[in-house]
């Protein structure tokens, strides 16, 4: 296990370097240079300041020198300063946004797995029945619904038409004066729709995957054996089949992270939630290069860590990998 762990940790280094290289290349593909963009929008910046900025970002140096400098600063968690008028360090801006996006996504992830696994089992054990058909239709609709449209419809129904739920932000006006319980309930009401949208987005794929796994496992010889020795259907499904059907789902946990983080741009923008997705969107619109690069690197890094954790869980759960790898 230790050997496997060390091997996986060592693999992180080239992958992380690759992430930074791609981020750097992508940003420098753009015609014109960042300083031009920043100064063009602000007539007050003099030629002298422009030169200073150029030196700070090392823009007068060749690209590989710039990349090296950027990488050195990254290793000290220095992502540079935002081009926005507040001119704050990018890392501070990201730090205050990350908790919101991460907790939203973790809640959505838990809900997603909590719902998709039973749905998948139900569909597999009731194969070809009305229930299975119904679930399949739901799954295909889920695949096809654009999340932003779903958000729009929910906003219209619950926010505008019935007026049950708030449709933007995290807190109501004047929530500072609320008691802690009321404050929490208020935030929960604000989060209900965004979390529903975030969860629904990937629920379909996961439940279909779970159904397929379950069906495959149910076709195995050891299940026939279990049935042949007279075990009840419950024991067969929950004790023998489920564990094996769940194994591949663990890896999917890691894979669903980039989708979730990427998806947060959409629902955070629509519901005006001050998270990383919204920050990224604003950064992109303002061409705030240091901010965009910072979030790209951190987003990919989070995925990398997520994948690693998922793989470790998989290794813990599956002795074949633990001992073989």
């Amino acid at each position: 296990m230790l050997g496997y762990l060390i091997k996986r940790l060592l693999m992180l280094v080239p992958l992380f370097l690759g992430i930074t290289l791609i981020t750097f290349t992508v940003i420098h593909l753009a015609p014109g240079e960042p300083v031009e963009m920043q100064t063009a929008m602000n007539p007050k910046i003099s030629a002298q300041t422009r030169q200073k900025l150029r030196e700070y970002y090392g823009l007068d140096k060749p690209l590989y020198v710039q990349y090296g400098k950027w990488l050195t600063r990254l290793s000290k968690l220095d992502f540079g300063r935002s081009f926005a008028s507040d001119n704050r360090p990018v890392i501070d801006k990201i730090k205050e946004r990350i908790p919101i996006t991460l907790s939203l996504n973790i809640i959505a992830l838990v809900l997603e797995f909590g719902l998709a696994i039973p749905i998948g089992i139900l569909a597999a054990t009731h194969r070809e029945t009305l229930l299975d058909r119904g679930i399949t239709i739901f799954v295909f609709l889920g695949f096809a619904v654009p999340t932003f449209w779903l958000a729009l419809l929910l906003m219209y129904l619950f926010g505008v038409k019935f007026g049950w739920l708030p449709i933007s932000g995290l807190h109501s006006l004047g929530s500072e004066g609320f008691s802690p319980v009321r404050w929490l309930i208020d935030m929960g009401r604000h989060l209900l729709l965004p979390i529903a949208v975030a969860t629904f987005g990937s629920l379909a794929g996961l439940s279909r995957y779970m159904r397929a796994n379950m069906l495959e496992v149910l076709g195995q010889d050891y299940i026939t054996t279990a049935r042949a020795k007279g075990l009840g259907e419950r024991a067969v499904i929950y004790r023998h089949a489920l564990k094996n059907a769940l194994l591949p789902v663990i890896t999917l946990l890691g894979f669903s992270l980039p989708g979730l983080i990427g998806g947060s741009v959409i629902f955070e923008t629509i519901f005006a939630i001050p998270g990383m997705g919204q920050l990224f969107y604003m950064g992109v619109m303002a061409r705030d290069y240091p901010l965009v690069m910072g979030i790209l690197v951190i987003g990919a890094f989070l995925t990398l860590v997520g994948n690693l954790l998922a793989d470790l869980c998989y290794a813990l759960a599956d002795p074949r990998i633990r001992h073989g790898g």
Partner: protein
Amino acid sequence: MTNLYTLYWNRFRSNRFAVAAALVVLSLFILSFLAPLITPYDPDAIDAYHVLLPPSGAHWFGTDELGRDVFTRVVYGARISLKVGFVAVGIAVLVGTVVGLVAGYYGGWPDTILMRLVDIMLCFPTFFLILAVIAMLEPSIWYIMIIIGLTGWMGVARLVRAEVLSLRERDFILAARALGASDLRIIFRHIFPNAMTPVLVSATLGVAGAILTESALSFLGIGVQPPTPSWGNILTSGKDYIEFAWWLSLFPGLAILVTVLSYNLLGEGIRDALDPRLGRR
């Protein structure tokens, strides 16, 4: 060979959902090619006297904030969606196939490097990457198609590589090599056609994904730029007028839903027809 294709066709035909989906996809093509014949309105014609009208006999899907006919804009929007879907997926399939063929056939360090590249690309939240690149460039439909393609080839590369790995050791490849066929000939003449089945399926599903991505980008205002109608940017005004004009949000969304649903069902149908092993789930 003809017998095999008859078998595929018969299997496909017996799947009602897939046939229905194929018909929808076909009608979308016809609709978008014949757009000017189908609707009497000009998609960009502003009509200040008929602003935000609800659906009626004259305007089936109502009118938008500039008095333009929403049905007309949705029909013309289909053109954009189909174009983006096919070009983006074409690029993804091309890049993915080449990467997968090279990695799988040659193995060794080209394989290691290419597959690590796939791993790295899969780490990025794709939507972030697309957003970043598009915002750095000028928004244009060509950039959108290229970027959606360049961020979507990894799955195809993995599929093709896996197929090549299993084909490489087969007897007919060995026979071709023994007869003195060059690498290129073996790859394109013998391996490529055999590895295409899963790619066809993943490409069909990819069209659905690309259409969704384009509509999300256009919705956020960095995709197809107005006044050119796209389903996503009609929904942008749908959001602004959601309190007074539900039809602006409902119809373009339904158009996306139906289109994406059809491509997904079509993809599944093709997979079941070509490879029943995978379909019997």
